[in-house]
């Protein structure tokens, strides 16, 4: 347990949601027969009461770093003015976390009351006790601290997406508040374009299976390093020797070693049972397009842009409550199509829409969810495309904002 507690504290820092000093140091507790924490902290006393009130085995407390701290704080305060819930806009958070409850006090009883029903609770800023300043997120797990890590990561992702989505919408509807404008200006320095030099990738063709595995592991690491995915992990695959090698469900893209399933196209084995939930979409895509490499991430501005729909048009759309599965418009971010589809293989699953889209373009954004890119032979192309699309989406977003602000 010590090991896991430390691992996920470290991961929160690595993924730039927490820091290794100051108020944003993650606090992670794990309970088997004894309770262990990754570090000492004043909050532990109250959090021990939370443990006592719940049938759980792990708890994470985090005051996220900027821009997430301010974003979550802003959304939390707004939520407290209405029903006490932040309603995420992105599809994955909605599927897995539903809504995000907010309370205004760091109080074990109230925390317990929320965590009895939900995977996370957000404590609004300003009202945490004593030294604890700033908004905080608490999340629990019944199996591993990884659950809390995933939840917190999703909450931060959802908060980011929600703020920027709502802000653009408010500008269009001319309802943006002074507080929203201020926050936008305040966090602007934190949302820089991704400008790192392009990484090197193992060149294709790959001579053997071993190299295929290594290339996938490498590609997964780069997607994380360039911050092209948060929360629910994304996925990576490569088609080689009539077999699709694909990351496993719930695997972290920076830890793919041992988490790749080989799935032969002839269906002769069902070992793909643990493969990513997008396996069917990946398989159909390689068969339809002849590409070999597929990357899927959740770059933030691609997701935000995918949900930007003209309010005038939206008002008359039959499907306005079901955009993520039924959007009838042909929409694009540059040359990249934006398509509907939910996670998985249902009748409205993205396996129905994605392969077709990728047969016409080398990238596609799934509404409110994330970006898929393909490479004919190698991951380098897919990766460059992913970066381009995200930077393009970011630029378009800010152009739109600037334009709306001017007018």
């Amino acid at each position: 347990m010590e090991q896991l507690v430390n691992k996920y504290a470290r991961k929160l820092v690595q993924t730039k949601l927490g820091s290794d000093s100051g108020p944003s140091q993650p606090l992670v507790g794990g309970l088997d027969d004894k309770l262990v924490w990754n570090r000492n902290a004043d909050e532990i006393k109250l959090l021990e009461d939370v443990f006592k009130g719940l049938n759980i085995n792990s708890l994470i407390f985090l005051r996220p770093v900027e821009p997430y701290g301010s974003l979550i704080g802003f959304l939390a305060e707004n939520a407290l003015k209405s029903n006490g819930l932040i309603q995420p806009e992105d599809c994955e958070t909605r599927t897995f976390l539903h809504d995000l409850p907010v309370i205004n006090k760091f109080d074990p009883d109230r925390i317990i009351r929320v965590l009895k029903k939900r995977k996370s609770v957000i404590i609004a800023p300003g009202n945490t006790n004593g030294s604890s300043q700033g908004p905080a997120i608490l999340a629990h797990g019944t199996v591993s601290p990884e659950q809390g890590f995933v939840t917190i990561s999703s909450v931060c992702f959802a908060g980011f997406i929600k703020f920027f989505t709502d802000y653009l919408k408010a500008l269009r509807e001319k309802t943006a508040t002074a507080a929203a404008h201020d926050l936008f200006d305040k966090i602007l320095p934190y949302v820089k374009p991704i400008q790192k030099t392009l990484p090197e990738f193992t060149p294709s063709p790959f001579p053997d299976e071993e190299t295929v595995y290594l290339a996938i592991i490498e590609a997964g690491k780069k997607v994380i390093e360039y911050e092209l995915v948060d929360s629910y992990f994304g996925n990576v695959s490569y088609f080689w020797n009539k077999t699709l090698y694909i990351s496993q469900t719930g695997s972290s893209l920076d830890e793919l070693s041992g988490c790749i399933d080989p799935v032969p196209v002839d269906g002769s084995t069902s070992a793909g049972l643990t493969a990513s939930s997008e396996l069917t979409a990946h398989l159909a895509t390689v068969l339809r397009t002849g590409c070999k490499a597929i990357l899927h991430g959740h770059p933030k501005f691609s997701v935000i842009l995918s949900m930007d729909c003209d309010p005038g048009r939206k008002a008359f759309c039959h499907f306005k409550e079901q955009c993520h599965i039924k959007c009838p418009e042909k929409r694009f971010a540059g040359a990249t199509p934006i398509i509907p589809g939910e996670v998985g293989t249902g009748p409205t699953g993205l396996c129905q829409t994605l392969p077709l889209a990728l047969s016409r373009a080398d990238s596609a954004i799934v509404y409110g969810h994330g970006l898929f890119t393909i490479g004919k032979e190698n991951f380098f192309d897919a990766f460059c495309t992913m970066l381009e699309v995200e930077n393009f989406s970011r630029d378009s977003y800010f152009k739109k904002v600037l334009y709306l602000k001017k007018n």
Partner: protein
Amino acid sequence: MYGWTGNILHIDLTKKSSRVESPGLNVLNRYVGGKGFGGKFLRQCATLPWDHPDMVICIFTGPLTGTISPTSGRAHILSKSPLTGLVGDSSVGGKLATRLKRAGWDGIVIKGESRTPLGITIKDDSIEFKDARGLWGLDINAVHEKIRPGTSSILAIGPAAENGVRFASITVDRHFAAGRSGLGLCLARKKIKYILVDGTGRTKIKDHEKLKQAREDILRLTAASPALMGQFGFTCLGTGAVYDLMDNRRMMPTDNFRRTFFEHAPGLNAAAYAKTYAPKKHGCLGCHILCKKIGKKNGKKITMPEFETMSHFTALIGCMDTDLVIKANERCNHFGMDTISVASTLACRREITGIDYTKESLLSLLNDIAFGRGEGKDLALGAKLYAEKMGKPEAAMAVKGLELPAYDPRGALGMALGYALSTRGGCHLRAYPISHEIFRKPVATNRFSFSGKARIIKIAEDLNTVVDSLIACKFTFFAAGLEEYAMAYEAVTGIETSAQDLLLKGERIYYNERIINALNNFDARDDDLPDRFFTKPGSGTNNINIPPVNRDAFLSARKKYYSIRGLTTNGLPEKDKAESLGLIWNNL
């Protein structure tokens, strides 16, 4: 009243009478349904032998039964197990639960014994006892042909139960087995050949909109689950989809758990069956996953084997013929025998005698077991008693007398702990650690480590207990959670609850089972695994090492579990803990 019908049917077979109990909402909300109510009634006669006339057989639905709450179509049957002497229970699919609920009953509790074979017909509030002397001796299929249940649900036993097979099962609606624990024999003891149920009522729902929302949430989550709805998932290939995974992870019990790798496995997987039998989806009433598969060959419909049957009738007993698996499965279903127990007992025999099976010898042994002929009589006792009788108790791969299913515990240490601690003996479903150790849900855990597993197992047992009470299917929980089901519970019953409240109900129900077992003298000595797992390694590869389970680490994890569960170091329940859960203690 919402959710529940509020009525429990008590049947006394000795008097051929019935009465209605209408527990108040508090009682219903406390015991929930299914396993919860079964445990309540079993506790009242906990120390009676399984075959005592006053021993109960409980068949229960749950508050979610008969609603659109996903996978709520399962029933729970519970009595004392003739095979193990423990709490004996089994979840079962088909239409039974839905029909029973529509007939106006949350559940049935059967006591007493009949002198001659009978059937019980329940049509709404009309209860009839039918002479079944003419059906005694018939196999399940023949019973179906005679009764022709139509839209009714029918539960029946076969000759195995009648002939005293300790692991006799109950079959519901032809294809669905309440397999484990020997519940078929409990019915046979009371001379019940079948129960036929139909009803016209509806489950009343407090908040339809909210229930719809909960349903959509659950469906969305299951759609995102590769194990359930993926192209290799249960919906497409049935539970047999797990076969390749166990092969791949080197945890397929082979040669009576002497190895964990079967070289013939690739040709015996779900894909191989799909090719030959073109199976179609089938399942419990109201389920969207439909994990059951019905195949066809030469125009004949065939119930496809579940994963455990596929594995145990090949690797465990050294056979490599899909057709044999199909036939053995069919025979077990018709005669009413649990495939896991029977295959495991046969594997034990193979180890002890050194005699391999041919197709003919295997099928003919199945007949001998079901009809109590020759060697079959001893085999019908189950692996534990059989091995003892043969002077080789170490060859029985069972925990507390229940034969182990098809996951080798050396390849998943949570499973090792789960097997040892389960209240019904060697069972993978009580804690279902395969979910995180293999399927990576809700997140993956290290299958080769005991770290954190004690509490994980405890919480999972609480979870699965309440799932068997609500009722929902455990498979759904590879994707959804109690968070979503709490919403369904609230929507249906109008009673405010939460995931954690439901877990607490599960904890109470499970602790009650520990009490029942303790009343029957089970303690830490029984919470253990066969020695083989601690002394012999599995069949690893260069990349996957499958060492024996480290005994000290196992005992230390078990000790942690006892403390977390609120048991003594000897695994016995404690008064304070029981009372803090609101359980009675007086008869301990």
